[in-house]
């Protein structure tokens, strides 16, 4: 039995957008969580989510909630360019952190986090929730059991809707899909090939520069080939311009591993579960439009059903909260791994833009 008698958690939710709200719901329903505080740069949004979660405190100021004495765990679900500051604030106060990916947008800011961890002796884990998609957990298990032999190569690709790219661009102008999304698959592959670091990246990209594209994202599509230290070849791709009404609601992905003794082929395109309805389904990203066809199960974080949230982000959030309470190990990405993911994604973008191979490490 786990050693958890009497221990409770007070959780701060920093950033109450879609992800913060989901994480907040999981926290609010976790048996060990006795206190919740949330903040958002939009105080009205923080208040609204606080009410729905039954949170005891809310604010427009992150530090107000992180520094509450009841808070002993901090979840950071702010926009990609607003991760580093609250992470370091929590570390300074000795509070463990679960932060959304990516660790930051530059290697210098990622190193600030690593230095703060060193200095204050804290713990930060990053929410690369693909690891908690059961199919990838099972793949990791097979790799650990040695059933593939030596991994000689792999492939991962993810496609998503144009509307998703626009949303990301609204959060942080010019944010590259490689850095905020392909990073999931970089993380997965590095996890699956643990101990075998990437030494070289080569990539190419292309985009049509559609008139409705904002920001500076040049490539709708990027293909990359990673060479690992032992020579294994991992090929990755990301495309964020699927047509608006394509029936998926999140990442459509494929992950494949080839080993000397076995092969794993994972279909994450969600075409196994379709719903067609003449009544229509509200389209998440196109408010005024219903869709008739939907790949159920295609939402990346998971889905609401029967009043609860189900899926990778639920399992991941619970795994982290359990880890804090009972000390059980959890599979969440460490800060060092998150920095490595960022470095690889920055190298991919650089290789695609400069059309040349990029060797790792790259300069800060």
């Amino acid at each position: 039995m786990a050693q958890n008698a009497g221990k409770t958690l007070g959780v701060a939710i920093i950033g109450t957008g879609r992800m913060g709200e989901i994480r907040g719901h999981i926290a609010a329903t976790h048996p060990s969580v006795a206190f919740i505080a949330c903040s958002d740069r939009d105080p009205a949004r923080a208040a609204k989510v606080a009410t729905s979660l039954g949170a005891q405190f809310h604010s427009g100021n992150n530090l107000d909630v992180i520094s509450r004495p009841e808070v002993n765990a901090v979840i950071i679900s702010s926009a990609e360019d607003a991760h580093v500051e609250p992470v370091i604030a929590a570390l300074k106060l000795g509070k463990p952190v679960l932060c959304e990916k990516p660790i930051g947008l530059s290697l210098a800011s990622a190193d600030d986090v690593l230095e703060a961890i060193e200095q204050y002796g804290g713990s930060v884990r990053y929410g690369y929730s693909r690891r908690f998609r059961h199919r990838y957990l099972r793949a990791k298990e097979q790799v650990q059991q040695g059933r593939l032999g030596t991994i000689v190569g792999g492939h991962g690709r993810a496609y998503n809707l144009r509307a998703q790219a626009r949303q990301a661009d609204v959060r942080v102008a010019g944010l590259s899909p490689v850095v905020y999304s392909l990073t999931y698959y970089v993380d997965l592959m590095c996890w699956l090939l643990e101990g075998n670091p990437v030494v070289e990246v080569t990539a190419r990209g292309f985009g049509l520069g559609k008139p409705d594209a904002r920001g500076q994202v040049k490539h709708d599509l990027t293909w990359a080939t990673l060479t690992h230290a032992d020579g294994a070849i991992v090929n990755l791709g990301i495309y964020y311009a699927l047509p608006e009404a394509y029936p998926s609601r999140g990442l459509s992905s494929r992950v494949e591993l080839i080993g000397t003794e076995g092969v794993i082929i994972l279909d994450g395109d969600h075409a196994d579960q379709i719903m067609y309805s003449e009544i229509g389904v509200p389209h998440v990203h196109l408010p005024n439009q219903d869709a008739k066809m939907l790949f159920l199960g295609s939402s990346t974080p998971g889905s609401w059903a029967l009043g609860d949230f189900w899926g990778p982000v639920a399992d991941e959030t619970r795994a982290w909260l359990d880890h804090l309470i009972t000390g059980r190990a959890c599979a969440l990405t460490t800060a060092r791994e998150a920095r490595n993911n960022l470095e690889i994604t920055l190298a991919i973008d650089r290789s695609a833009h400069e059309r040349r191979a990029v060797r790792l490490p790259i300069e800060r």
Partner: protein
Amino acid sequence: MSESKPIGLAIVGSGRIGTLRARLAASHPSVKFIAVSDKDPQRAETLADRVGAQLHSGNNLDVISRPEVDAVIVSTSEHEHTEAILLALEHGKAVLVEKPLADNSSDALRVIDHIARSGGNVRIGYSRRYHQRYMLAKEQIVAGRLGKIVGGLARLYNLRTQAYAIMERDPLATPVVDSLTYYVDLMHWFLEGNRIVEVEARGQRGVLAAKGFDADDVLWAIMTCEDGAVLDIGVSYVLPEKYPSIGHSARVELLGSEGVLLIDDDHKDQLMYTERGIPHVYLPDSDVNMVFLGSSTPGDWALGEFWGPLAAETRAWLDHLSTGRPCALATPEVAKRTLEVTLAIQESALAGKPVRLAG
């Protein structure tokens, strides 16, 4: 209604695919004469008996030069394609040659030069084009439903035992030159007129190299087209020998400004498990229990007939000869380009550098 001409056919090379082509041709309504050859005269005779051919020989020239012969199917080993094609062209016969056109670019150039000088009808059997899912994909592109193509993906896996068999026949017929070539051809066909101008590839050696073959276990290449579209293409011929597929396991995807096409060609939709065991195609002494039905690349025998891409392709070519109807088989120019791209992919993987192709 089209007017049809009778066809006299020579089959050069009586191996597995030559045998299949001969059997398919023998049942075509326009084929009136068949001659078969093989460097092993006994094998030619066996095939001749089987299909009721009028002539067989251990000498290719004997069958190609026969006055009854109008057309020649070249199903020899990869490195013997060029001599047989040139011989047929010199005798003014139409040619269907198995892919690749040649295993090196100077041989491919000899064929192109000969056609430029003296004319001739040569088509290359890239039978993936006649796999219905790819035919349907091409139709969507022709109809403009994808809009402008931004890029795509093709990946091919197959058993390591297949790689051993092919490279024992011809060491230059690597998984890239001999097999990935199908998917380079498909991309050329889908993106017709938009040439691949640069390839950047990386590969990893292991199982195949340990067996003494000069080939990568896993190879991925990113190909850039002249309009900037980027195509990702990969091949691995090291699947375990009892993996339940008996041919290509493939994925082909196309991303366009107005649409997307995802093609699952891994054959998981039709599986058979039997405690009785199924003879393994490439491991004569071994049975398997599980097989992905429909995973044989050329197609399958069922109820006494052969069904699948190779049947459709052979028929389309014979119809083309007999009635003049156009067919979708690859032309020598495209096949030469495809060969150049596959050679560039290998060169890039070996050097760890991008390779540019002349425009």
